[in-house]
Each structure stands twice: as C-alpha cells, then as structure tokens.
C-alpha cells in the first residue's frame, strides 16, 4: 500500500523526509490513530488504509539518558566514556 502523494509507508520514505527535517507519521483513515514510525497496518483497528501526515516536530521529552559506553559506530566517531555525546 502507498499514499499517492508521498510514497509507500516504509522506513526509506520516513528517513527521506527526516533528511529534509520533516517528521512524518502515518494516520489510519479508519480510526484516525497516528503512528510514528510508519505502519502499513493499523495496530489499533488492523485497517490497512493509511496516509502520511506531517507533524509539527514539537513534543515533550518522555525520557532521557547520557550514554557513556556507546555503540561501536559512535565510538569510531570519537565518543567514549571521557567524551560522551551531549545534547
């Protein structure tokens, strides 16, 4: 399934919009639930009619942490216990 204006409900399309600094969600046309990241099938009502909708990009922080022992891909960029990534 896809949205004729924006493309299929895939990570690739989601990431393409992120690269343009646009946060996109999928909306179920049956029950109006919003999902991010994208879903092809609505987990609330299992309907399969979805559409892409842009989000404002504003939200509330639900949780945070500072990771001192990072994954390899971040370590190789110079982050480590002495230089943790900071917001």
């Amino acid at each position, binding site marked *: 399934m896809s949205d004729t204006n924006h493309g299929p409900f895939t*990570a690739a399309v989601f990431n393409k919009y992120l690269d343009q600094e646009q946060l996109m969600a999928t909306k179920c046309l049956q029950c109006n639930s919003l999902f991010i*990241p994208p879903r092809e099938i609505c*987990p609330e009502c299992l309907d399969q009619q979805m559409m892409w909708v842009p989000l404002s990009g504003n939200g509330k922080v*639900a*949780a*945070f*942490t*500072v*990771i*001192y*022992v*990072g*994954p*390899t891909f*971040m*370590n190789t960029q110079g982050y480590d*216990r002495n230089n943790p*990534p900071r917001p």
Partner: protein
Amino acid sequence: MITKKRSFGRGVAIVGAGMSQFGAFPDMTSRDLFVEAFHELRQSVDKGFDPRDIEILYLGNFSSELFEGQGHIAPIMADAVGLVPRPAVRVEDACASSGVALRQGILAVASGLYDMVLVGGIEKMTSLPTTEVTDTLAAAGDVLYEIPAGFTFPGFYAAIATTYMHQYGAQPEHFMHVAMKNHDNGSKNPKAQFGVTIEDWMEKRKASAIKKGKPVPTWSNVWDFFYDGKANPMIAWPLRLFDCSPITDGASAVLLVAQDIATRFTDAPIHIIGSGQASDYPLHDRNVLTSITAARRAAQSAYDMAGVSASDIRIAEVHDCFTIAEIVAIEDLGFFKPGTGYTMAQDGVTALDGIKPINTSGGLKAKGHPVGASGVGQTVEIWKQMRREAGDRQVSGDIPLALSHNVGATGQTCVVHIYERRN
C-alpha cells in the same frame, strides 16, 4: 483480542534440573557448558532416568552466530548430550529465549505429543570484546529506529530509570540497594559469576592494590565505592557498572515430563501450573515507560491459568538485567503497587529473609546473565529452592508456590511461569 482463560491439555512437571557454572570460561565452548548443565541435570533426577527416553530438545539461544560464529546450534547441542536423531528446536526471543523455550517444552508435553522433553539454554558471550557484545545485544532492539539513534541496552534501561525517577522520586542509591541484595544472595550461590558481596568485592580490590603497590582505595563504606567513578563507572546515566548484569558464559537445563508419570522419577516433582507470554512494541513506541506491559499481560495470563494471585507467591526469580529492571518487575508482577517497588530492597522486604524474597540465586546481576540460558537458569533456582536444596541461600519454611519472570530485550517479549510443590 481473544482473552479467554487458558489451560494445559494435561499437567506438566519438572523432574530434573541443572546448570553449568556461570562466568567467563575462555577454554570452554557452548558444547562443553551445555554438557556440564546436562550432567548436573542427570544427577538431580532422584530415581534416575534413561536419557534415551528424552524425545525432543527445545533450546533457548539468542545469538550463537554473532557470539561464536555458529548457527543452527540446537542439533549441535543435542549431539553434545547424545540426543541425535531426536528433533532439536532452537527458540530465539532475545534474553527471554530459554524462558520461551521452556514454554514451548511445556506445551509439547501438555498437548500429549511428548512425554519427556529436555529444555535448555546456552550462551557463550565472552569470546567477543565488550564493545562487540554491546553491539550484538543491541540487535535485540529496533535496528531501524532505536539503534541508529545511539541507544545501547544500558541506555534503554537508563531511559526507563530516569522516567521512573521523575515519576516516583526514586534515586540511584535505591537501585544500588538492589545490587547489594543480589550480590549478598550471589555470595551464597556456588554457581554464581560474582559469588561475593559488594563489601567483600571492595576488600578484594583493596588487597589487590596493596599487593600490586598501587594506590589503595580509601572507601570507608559502600557509598564511597558507589560514587567512585573509576571502580563503579557510569555506563548510561543514572546506571553505573554495578547496576548492570555481567557478560557471561553459561548453560542451563530442565527435564519435563507428563504429570501422570512424574513420580517414576522423583517423589518431589515441581509442577508447572501457569504459563503466560506476551509481546510489545519496541521501547521508543510505547505509551508507558515505568512498567513493562508485556510483563503485566504475561503475569495475568499465568495467574489466571494457575488460579492464584501475586500474594500467594512465596519467592520469585525476576529478570534483573539492570537494577531498575528488578524494581519494575516486582511492580509488574503485582507484588508491590506501582511506584513503591524501589524501596523494597533497601527495606529488606525482598531479601532472603524478607516477606517476598526476590532473586535468591543472586539474579542475573550476581549469578550472571548468559542471555539465552538465563530463563531456564531461573527455573533451576526455583527447582532447588522448592526442593530445599539451595544450601546457604535456602529460604526458610515451605515454598508451595514460586514464579519466574523472563524478559526479552526491553520487554518486547515477556514470559512468566508459576510453579507448585504439592508434597
């Protein structure tokens, strides 16, 4: 969703259990460890049994491919304990792999298809450097949306911890009390990877420094140690090294039979009377972070099937991959109200001699966490406690009902079992 009460087709009992030593064993492969667990299992069957009567193996394993470069590990483990040509099934649900393998074994007996089933778990983790272990474990998260953001497993549980702290007022010191309690229990478990209390650990570090002529730590109490950024470094704020379970090699195994033949093998079988399992979205996609919803659902299914409630449970082994995880677990299981679990270790409620002993084995924290073996490892402890074979860490009095709680990743999987001793 269909939520009717479920029951087994017939009763299922444990008649034998064993585990390898948990720890770091450079000279042992997963085959050696599984054989070690199987040896202890064979010796644990009171009236003996013929291993040729085992009909199938269900094996929990998270990632032998990434840890050891060995895929298709179930028939290899079956071979190691002499079970070829019987079917061998690997079950993978991250750190809940062997808890789910146990459930599959139970269902196979309960269905009437098999009378005797071997359930095992194995993980050989220490061949890789820590950074690669961290990357391998991260594969149990959401690799599209969580891992690219830089999350690690300590990071996920740290996010749960900060949310919990914000909502309920817990402090990192409360988490450390969970670590101290579990190390106290682990010090009484000869199979544990860290079989010492934190106080003994501190003394050892001091003695080692004196011996090597290095500066001796000046800790005067456990809190000096706790705040020492070198000895107990931050891993993901607020979780420090001693909030995290270790990287472990280990194997575990239990022998299941149909209830109606259990007394052929022992006069003290442990009956499995409840089993529940649920899944959930990845952590980033949940509405609630201070509770693991799959654990609540799995527990409810298990309680409903067993016809018992949380207050009936005498002891529990819960999935304390991080200290905060034990706090969330004892609330999710209904032992304590939401937001009250964080004081229970500090207050001694969950200690060996407390009202509700939790993780008498030392938990994943002190006993060790060979991820694919941890679920069945919990069952081995329940078996020993219920049969009063737990040595120095034996809980006093009868244990008519016990529970195990095994979580995969951040709770995308949770499986709960309830055990009964009837005589």
